[in-house]
């Protein structure tokens, strides 16, 4: 049973948490503009790495906050937990070294050259407010 650090409550047993899958899957701003393959990539394809994995956890039986965890999928060792406020839009932890190289993923039948173009942010970006700054960084 994993020992997970909730950024708000501290270290707690895994049974208090629920799992939310890969972190940094950003909902496309305009789903209608996507091809079937691009939409399928957002919907179904996950990185599933043999090694470092950024994932979402929810402190379901505690403060009910969602947060990010960097966990090794082989050793199950947890490198760190981070709040989503601190994460960049791809879900990477603050100060993460793994960078875009590790984040790049294979795409099946995608016409788009850059794997991340489909992953622009909805919500914050669509609204012209200050919280969108992180999203702008992603697009540079």
């Amino acid at each position, binding site marked *: *049973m994993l*020992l997970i650090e909730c950024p708000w409550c501290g270290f707690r047993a895994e049974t208090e948490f629920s799992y939310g899958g890969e972190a940094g899957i950003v909902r496309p701003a305009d789903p209608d503009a996507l091809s079937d393959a691009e*939409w399928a990539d957002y919907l179904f394809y996950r990185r599933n790495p043999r090694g470092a994995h950024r994932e979402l956890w929810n402190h379901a039986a505690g403060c009910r906050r969602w947060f990010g965890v960097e966990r090794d999928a082989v050793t*199950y060792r947890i490198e760190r937990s981070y709040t*989503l406020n601190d994460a960049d839009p791809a879900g990477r932890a603050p100060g993460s070294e793994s960078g875009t190289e590790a984040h790049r993923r294979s795409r099946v039948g995608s016409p788009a050259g850059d794997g991340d173009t489909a992953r622009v942010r909805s919500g914050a970006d669509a609204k012209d*407010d200050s919280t969108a700054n992180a999203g702008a960084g992603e697009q540079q």
Partner: protein
Amino acid sequence: MTAAQPNRLPQGGRIDRTRPLAFTFDGKACEGYAGDTLASALIANGVSLVGRSFKLRRPRGIVGSGAEEPNAIMQLGEGAAAEPNVPATQVELRDGLVARTTRGWPGVRFDVGVINDVFGRMLGAGFYYKTFMYPRSWWKYYEHAIRQSAGFGRAPDAPDPDNYEHMNAHCDVLVAGGGPAGLMAALTAAESGARVILADEQTEFGGSLLGSAERIDGAPAMEWVAVTLARLRDHADCKLLTRSTVFAYHDHNFLTIVERCTDPPETFREGTQIGRSGVDDRHFDDGKPEGRRGPSGRDQPGEHDRRGGHDGRGAPAGRPHRVSNAAGRHDGSAAHIRERLWRVRAGQVILAQGSFERPLVFCNNDRPGVMLASAVSTWINRYGVLPGRRAVIFTNNDSAYRSAIDLADAGAEVAAIVDSRRGGAAELGSRAREHGIAVLEGHVVSDVAGRQHVRGISIARWHGDSWATVSPTIRIDCDLVVMSGGYSPAVHLHSQAGGRLAWDETRLGFLPTESRQPNVSAGAGNGSRSLEECLADGLSAGKEAVSRPGLKGTTVVMPTVSASAENPTEALWRVPAAKDPDRCAKQFIDFQNDTTVADIRLAAREGYRNVEHVKRYTALGFGTDQGKLGNINGMAVLADTLGKAIPEVGTTTFRPAYTPVSFGVGAGESVGELYEPVRKTAIHEWHEAAGAPMEVVGQWHRPWYFPRDGEDLHAAVARESLAVRNSVGLMDASTLGKIDACGPDVVEFLERIYTHDVGRMKVGRCGYGIMLGEDGMLMDDGVLARLGEQRFHLTTTTGGAASVLNWLEKWLQTEWPELRVYLTSLTEQYSTFALAGPDSRKVLDKLGCDIPLDRDSFPFMNVRPAMLAGMPVTLFRVSFSGELAFEINIASNLALAMWNKLMEAGQRFDITPYGTETMHVLRAEKGFVIVGQDTDGSVTPVDLRMNWLLSRNKDFLGKRSLRRPDCLRKDRKQLVGLLSPDARTVLPEGTQLIEEPASRPPVPMCGHVTSSYQSAVLGHPITLALVTGGRARRGEMIYAALPERDPMPVEIVAPVFYDADGQRQHV
């Protein structure tokens, strides 16, 4: 030696001779002493035959003295309290114990299956796979016969009457194993200020020292153990657990320990009460009666008489069945816990579980009377039992010489030590000779005579080639063969934790190397051989575990042990025989699974190379053995046969559990009424008083129907549904999920969640809403009511309440944190009643409502706050039955009063309470779906003809998926109604639908029935179904495939059966 216990030595051992205990073995009365195990008591009573082997039915005796024992697998107790598959070596003897052999029919002395041994040549590796494979249809008969004859004990025939509990604990250092290394490590850690848990599976700490005559600090080793335990008890943060096996090592240094706490009953302690904090519970040391004291010195509350009326397992008879709650039993006394599961999160783990002595692999090495050397020393030194009168020792290492000396000191005749090594032993060799024991160096035992018990052995000169033949030249009569093939470290937990193993060519074993989790191995489990090495290893492991900031460091020093030099162990994996390896008498590697050298060789010949495959083909290391006794010998024989080195072959994977763990302790307190939470509505007692059977829906107990005058389900449902259609009915719908959603951005948020145009809803309006997963499939449905510009009341399905809230929260937190929306679950704070039927408005009028209820003032799909019978309510004009209906939301503490008022006011309209079954019938008559019944996660709103709910003006979750090619297929299953021409048969839900009645298998299926009821108002059955391309197929006939009947034709119709234009709800 007494007549009752012919093999009991006149003195010695750690047993209490003033406390004789009576027990039975296969119905025969026997006697032992407190402190015995069942195994030591059986040997004391002269019992040598304890079972028949699994496959070949050979007679078997006790081989080991601990968890590795392969043969003495017992059935304890009877009836509900029966416990199968317990090694006799791990059963504390207690008064009244009833033990039986598990294998051998009709009895161990004469077993009909013994024919298997005579024809054993046919029963080699993979025999079952090969023989019982064909014809396939016969397998069910084979399986029955095999299971019948291969019994491994019998499961209890009634629910377990005992209590179990779970405890959570945290510590800086968990030490698994309380032998010399574990004690030394625990002491070092505790004296450094660490919080320590020390767990050992035996009744006493000491490990190998319990059965040895070695000395520490110039005194018997057990005196050092006593001093060490006293020092550990001085530390408030040190918990000592005996009878406690660390059986599994999980992720992040989480380990589970099973503590056997009520055996024997005399050791019942205050620490075993339910609900008591386990912290600083240090009275687990020695199993003596003073263990009953509690740390606070209080008396034992509710002491039971645990001496009389035992059921064979030490559980008092006739006591209440179950605890009523976590704090104690119905009578308020402490519950009697049989086993406790400790769930421990440890900073560091020290693995000091010792090692297993290996058997030697020679012909007929499984005869009763062939024992491991360490076991023989344990019988003599710990239990005062002498297992034979005339012994031969067969060894490839020095340690077995100690057993020879122990035997001689105890008065047995040691005919010879047969040592495969040309150089023999070092100092222990001279000591043995001083005892007058003959030592035959460079020799091996090639065969054993005797069938039910050892009668003698043959000895041959050993030339160094395991696979050549030898000529036995010496025969010796004896009744005990003591064997030692060296030691294998118990690396199970290290391996379970993901640690690696490496073969050590000098120590001849797999040793733990790299750990994946914070743990360190110590002692014999780490390859230490002498007592001195074990203690030193424990000391350094203890220091390593506490070498981090915050702890003060240790002053513990090494005790003095007279070290004696030993000669290296010789690799002797298979002992040569007079005939070649495939024709000589059986040489057993795994006693429990009857795996022999010839089986491993056969597997290799048939192409098995991978050790995991060989394991499964030959059953090596199956059962309770789990690689304890035969693993290394088996790997080595396989390696030899394949011409490989042992590390190339490798070892099999170690998985939990290390020893068998009862189902009871796994379940803990979560049994019976504590198995699952029960959720009751505020009206629950009224429903019960009305005699309503309950239906469990997502832990809620909901009234199913309200039978009147002996009605059955069908009669009651017909009456209830006609009441709603013709007058008025009342249903408790409180279990509906209720979520308050508010905030400046609530409309924007709900627009993204729900599929319809939420923003168009005016304050005071209700709307039916559905939400989809991003894959476009229907996830949940309910009613949205706009209570204010920035406030909505959302309802969800009963089962979806929690998951919908999670879903909404996840989007708000992870994707749209900029939206200012606040969600609050109100499911339990508010109760909901559905008042449905043409007379429902009259009931409210009679009760007195402060708002106008007429059709124009309060139209269908509107919501109003109101005072009803002087109580504040929220009224919703929504209908799940298609009738004029009101849903009444009221604070739960007022709910029962309101319910009673409604029933009273409705009396003159024959108001009828109705349950979930009638609710289902009414909604099915209207074609309203139930998410999770008519849908299954693969159904889109388009499949359900809900296109009118899908907004074209906005995006919403799942919308894009509805354009995926798969969602546009013409042959998707779509919701339809079905009617049967006979107007009588109610199709079972789940019935498969087919196109052609006379198709031959495999029959293609074109759909299935999702809802099916008898409609009282229509007078015939109605059916909802999902049918391939169904919407375009109105009027077509398809067929329902029914078991034991011909397929029945059914007609595809529209899925609305009653009031198709929906007039009745608008009145």
